[in-house]
């Protein structure tokens, strides 16, 4: 961790009681960046600043935002901006805080992004369960419209942007950008295939669409105000600026912390006094998940890795959504593994076979092991099932699935089985005894009414 003073770029208003109000936002420099952009900068210049900042997407994949914006085919309009506020990766809760405590910062970020890419219609997709975030965003949007920051001819300029706030219906998969687009269109949230449905080319309503994470956009006001160069000066070469990390699990002081990106290490974050504060009750660290439940696990030997995309990737995992889940020595690796897999099994959208059936099967095997009915062959079977979902169980993962949700369920198993194989073996007896059978029958029929009672002519379609 460097010693210099690091500005709080996105979390500057979190300590303010009324940081979410328009008055406080304006009083703390809010909407200054928008004013600056509209009065002094062309859209291309805003885009250049973001490119100069090397701002990496904060949603999980870590793709540079400036470059992503450039993928929209030139001259194709309308194009849309979609904000992915469907934060649901287990352990991740940074976007929620951003939306609850500083909604105007996000709205200003959207305005800047829309200005840069030339879009007049933006959609703000907020996870269904985040009631307070929805409430604060809705009220912030009303205030922004009333104050002339959104809507037609913003601040008297030619630039107009309409922002639609949309609430999700509670599906993890909708955090995947193409599934989010499907959901936004009113369909069942299932991922689309890439190719051909890359959002930049064929996104929402098959128009060019930029999908950005909440935190990514929240950085924009600071970048426009202070310049992309100032942002790029912070952090490491390829991981610039600051970044929010949500620390949870067996630490003394769980929470969301803004740290310099790329230079801070895991040890700083987990053990630093102002951050995680060390493992609870002075216990030893067993493992931690560095970037949300999808990421392969890290162990003690990884603590001194910097929080930097490239370094973490080279070590075989990812920073993903910035969620660090800590497990101390008392953790049962098999049970932890099952908990994570169960999440993915339940959240699998059901569209493609390996994910739908594979994750469910993995969960069943793990649960059976926990129930004391494990068999010696189960450990290798787990790995082989993983291999059928994510061939070769490599990092970055290959996949037989449509989207990365399937391989996400593979990560914890591959990590845990390889590191703690003896713990798995301990659950596997020698006796291939009978598996208990319970038959819960689901799903009554929606008994068909006689067709003769159906709609009249003209309405049969």
């Amino acid at each position, binding site marked *: 961790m460097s010693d210099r003073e690091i500005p709080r770029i996105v979390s500057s208003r979190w300590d303010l009681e009324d940081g979410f109000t328009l008055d406080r936002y304006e009083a703390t420099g809010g909407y200054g960046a928008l004013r600056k952009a509209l009065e002094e900068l062309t859209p291309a210049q805003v885009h250049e600043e973001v490119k100069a900042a090397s701002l990496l997407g904060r949603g999980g994949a870590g793709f540079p935002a400036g470059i992503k914006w450039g993928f929209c085919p030139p001259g194709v309009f309308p194009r849309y901006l979609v904000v992915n506020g469907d934060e649901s990766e287990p352990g991740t809760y940074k976007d929620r805080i951003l939306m609850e405590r500083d909604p105007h910062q996000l709205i200003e970020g959207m305005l800047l992004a829309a200005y840069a890419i030339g879009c007049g219609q933006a959609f703000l997709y907020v996870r269904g369960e985040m009631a307070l975030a929805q409430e604060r965003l809705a009220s912030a949007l009303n205030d922004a419209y009333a104050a002339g920051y959104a809507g037609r001819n913003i601040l008297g300029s030619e630039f107009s942007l309409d922002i639609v706030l949309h609430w999700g219906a509670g599906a993890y998969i909708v955090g995947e950008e193409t599934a989010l687009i499907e959901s936004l269109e009113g369909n069942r949230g299932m991922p689309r295939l890439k190719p051909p449905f890359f959002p930049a080319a064929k996104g929402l309503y098959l128009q060019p669409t930029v999908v950005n994470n909440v935190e990514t956009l929240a950085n924009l006001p600071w970048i426009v105000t202070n310049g992309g160069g100032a942002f790029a000066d912070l952090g490491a070469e390829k991981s610039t600026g600051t970044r929010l990390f949500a620390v949870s699990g067996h630490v003394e002081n769980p929470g969301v912390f803004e740290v310099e990106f790329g230079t801070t290490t895991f040890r700083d974050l987990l053990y630093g006094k102002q951050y995680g504060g060390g493992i609870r009750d002075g216990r030893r660290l067993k493992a931690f998940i560095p970037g949300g439940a999808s990421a392969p696990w890290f162990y003690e030997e990884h603590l001194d890795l910097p929080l930097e995309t490239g370094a973490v990737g080279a070590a075989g995992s990812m920073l993903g959504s910035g969620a660090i889940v800590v497990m101390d020595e008392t953790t049962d690796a098999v049970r932890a593994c099952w908990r994570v897999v169960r999440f993915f099994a339940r959240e699998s959208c059901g569209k493609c076979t390996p994910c739908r059936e594979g994750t469910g099967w993995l969960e069943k095997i793990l649960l059976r092991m926990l129930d004391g009915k494990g068999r010696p062959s189960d450990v290798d079977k787990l790995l082989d099932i993983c291999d059928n979902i994510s061939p070769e169980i490599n990092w970055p993962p290959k996949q037989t699935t449509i989207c990365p949700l399937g391989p996400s369920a593979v990560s914890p198993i591959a990590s845990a089985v390889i590191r703690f194989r003896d713990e798995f073996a301990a659950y596997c007896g020698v006796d291939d005894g009978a598996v208990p059978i319970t038959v819960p029958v689901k799903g009554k029929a929606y008994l068909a009414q006689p067709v003769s009672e159906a709609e*009249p002519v003209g309405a049969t379609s």
Partner: protein
Amino acid sequence: MTDTKATDDTGMTTGGAPPAPPDAVTVTIDGREVQARQGELVIAAAERHGVYIPRFCYHPRMEPVGMCRMCLVDIDTGRGPAIQPSCMIECTDGMVVATESPTAKKAQEGVLEFLLVNHPLDCPVCDKGGECPLQDQTMSYGPGESRFIEEKRHFEKPIPVSDVVLLDRERCILCDRCTRFAKDVAGDPLIHFLDRGNETQVNTFPGHPFASYFSGNTVQICPVGALTATPYRFKARPWDLEEAESTCTSCAVGCRMVVQTSRNTVLRYQGVDVDPVNWGWLCDKGRFDFEAVNSEERLASPLLRDEGLLLEPASWSAALGRAASALQLGLDRGGAEGVAVLGGARLTNEDAYAWVKLAKGIIGTDNVDCQMGDGLPAEAVLGLPRATIDDACRPGGVVLLVGPDPKEELPVLYLRLRHAVLNDDVALVELASVETATSYLAAHSLRYRPGEVFGLVEALLEGKSPTEVAGIRADQIEDVAQLLADRPLTVVLGRGNLADSAVAVAAAGKAITLARPEARFLSGLRRANVHGALEMGMAPGLLPGRLLLTDGKGAADPGASAAEAREQLTGLWARLPEQRGLDATGILQAAADGRIETLFLLGADPLNDFPDRDLAERGLAGARTVIACDLFLTESVRQADVVLPAAGYAEVAGTTTNIEARVTTVAQAVTPPGTAQSDWVIAAELARRLGYDLGLEAPDHAWDELTKFAPAFGRIGTGLLAAAQADPDGVLVAIATSSAPPAPAEAPAEPAAVDDADEEPAAPKTDDEEPAAPKTDDEEPAAPKTDDEEPAAPKTDDESPVIDLPHRVPLPEFTVVEPQNTDAYSLRLVATRRLYDRGTLVRHSGSLVGLAEGAVAWLNPYEFEKLGITSGDEARLTSARGQVLVPVRPSEAVPRGLVLLHVNQSGGRANALIDIHSPVTEIRVERP
């Protein structure tokens, strides 16, 4: 049509590999370099070249979704091999595909294991066992044994999703075929995925059953036994089925299908994918009405009316004897004009020829009509230049629908039109008095006042109108006229409203062909083989092979070929009718007036099918002797004096002709019940008892005889029957298209006018080889670019062979009577058909009979207060002809001033209200 719609053409032999199209790309599949079309999917290109990639969700007639992941293969586009779904990846030049690499094999094996995780292994009791893609592909590509020892997913099963389809969600592998079909192909998005993860299920929403006319297709395309149809469930094992390819005759679209039987019982129909017609789809009526073939109520022995006035079983010799003596007596008393034949659309072409020969060539009467007053004048059907379905669906065209709602009457035509409108930039213009189930597809749907369609069509052809016409604003007329003028035009011509005049529709057709000679017409008539029957001359004034009774008699301008043909015919037939006879209306009127001694009902039920029930009743009562040949004891047959049981569908072999004039085969798969006989045998027996030899010893002898006077036409049949299995697409009978009066006969030497397209179905089209037909280029309805748009069929040439008859049926004058509003308090009647009604087939198909809605009068909601009636109550509908009591319900689909009543529904007869002679039917709706 996109290239993704390639057919399953595994049977292709590379005798003459088609030349590579100019935009071909070279792809290496399993080490072999092959040519693929630009944009062709890897899975389709591989299959075309003999490499079968396993699949479940991929279906060549639907958009790929890449969901089942079964078709994963290694694809290298220059960046190293990667596992990709071959149903989603288009071929690009230089692509290397490995379908059997270790990674691909492992992925495929893995996917199959996953699919079997929750799939019950109940194959021994599953209907799909033996024809199950999951079973087959598990044997070919799957792991040897299961590693799954946990409990499988359980659902209540089976559950009904509609009245005919049951769903077993445990067997479902969630391939999205049925749901995609419902949403994308049928346009009935009523089944969906619910829940998620491995508890994802397909289901309906409460109160919204899968009430689609096309639901049976989902059963056919289901790759497992998840969807089963009640009529086939637990009836047979696939390996016990015998099958014969045939053509559906439930309506006149002519969908190809296989008839599957076991132990002399029809058990199932399955759609066959042919490019020009049905693409593998069938409607539920066509698919499930095989139950009527097996019905216990089929007539199995002749019936005679005894002295106690009851119909009693009798022997064939007694029945034929009674029929012949009554006929002879009638002839002696009333001459040939005293004999009339109603019906015949049920017959095959061969049977129709036999009956025409009996009626016109032996008895000598021209009072023959295969339509029941619910169709169009025969000349309008035979005399307008005919389009194929592919013509109508060709990208960039416009289809003018002047006729019935295709979804209700010609369902698979609706599917083709829907696809063309949604995918191929075909514009649909609908002229209909009420909103139909097809209206939502139309660029313009014009609600004309019943009876005024001719004026509207004239205005549309004119391009403008100073005032509103038939209730359509002048500016709308201009917009629509512009659209019609700008694009290649196909017209679907039929009867959209049985309470409306057929002559007006025919006149509209004539006006269009005069104004737009290049426009093509697709018939909108629905009865099974009505088009074939007309080709065979089952209408007044007509002789087989589109010859006119007046041809060669100097009355009309005769083509020389027609004159010669007539000469030939005079030599073959004992006599020809002296003068033009009566149509169905005329026959019933004459019978009512006591001028018909003998009335034959040939599969006709005028009491229910003739639009004017009062006239039908008086006609049946007035005819001295009624002789019925039918499958069932219909209401009209009950009035007959002699009832002769006939063999029906799947019990006779022959040919049928569809709305395009496409002649295809129908197969015999079972034997008729009891002593029922083929219609041609009945005709021959009657002829014999009159002292004549019909001259036919087998049904296809009809074609030999036709060859003698209409050689081109005749050889269609002989060739087609010989090559039946080789050419499922059949042969098209083109119609001479010039709008001028009949063309001078340019091909009098008959044998030269035919080529052997019929014997070699894959041969190039007739026209190209016909030396003496200078105008045939114009007549060729298929554009040359079709080759590019259509997937390669097993044939080397996608086009169906086309036979041009050297003469055409001229369009007579149609006199349109303008309707007069007689009563300001009345509403105009719109009488339309629904797919399910009290028709013979539906009524005797247990699975379908409950689907007919029953009679309801639909009125605009606005009318209720005005008329002082309440929704759901019974109201009295009174016309000049009669009155009925039916419940009334509101519908926005019905414009003000109209009342919509579906014909032939139980509980209230629309045809009791209609006066066939009146151009419109005015109805008073009152509280009873």
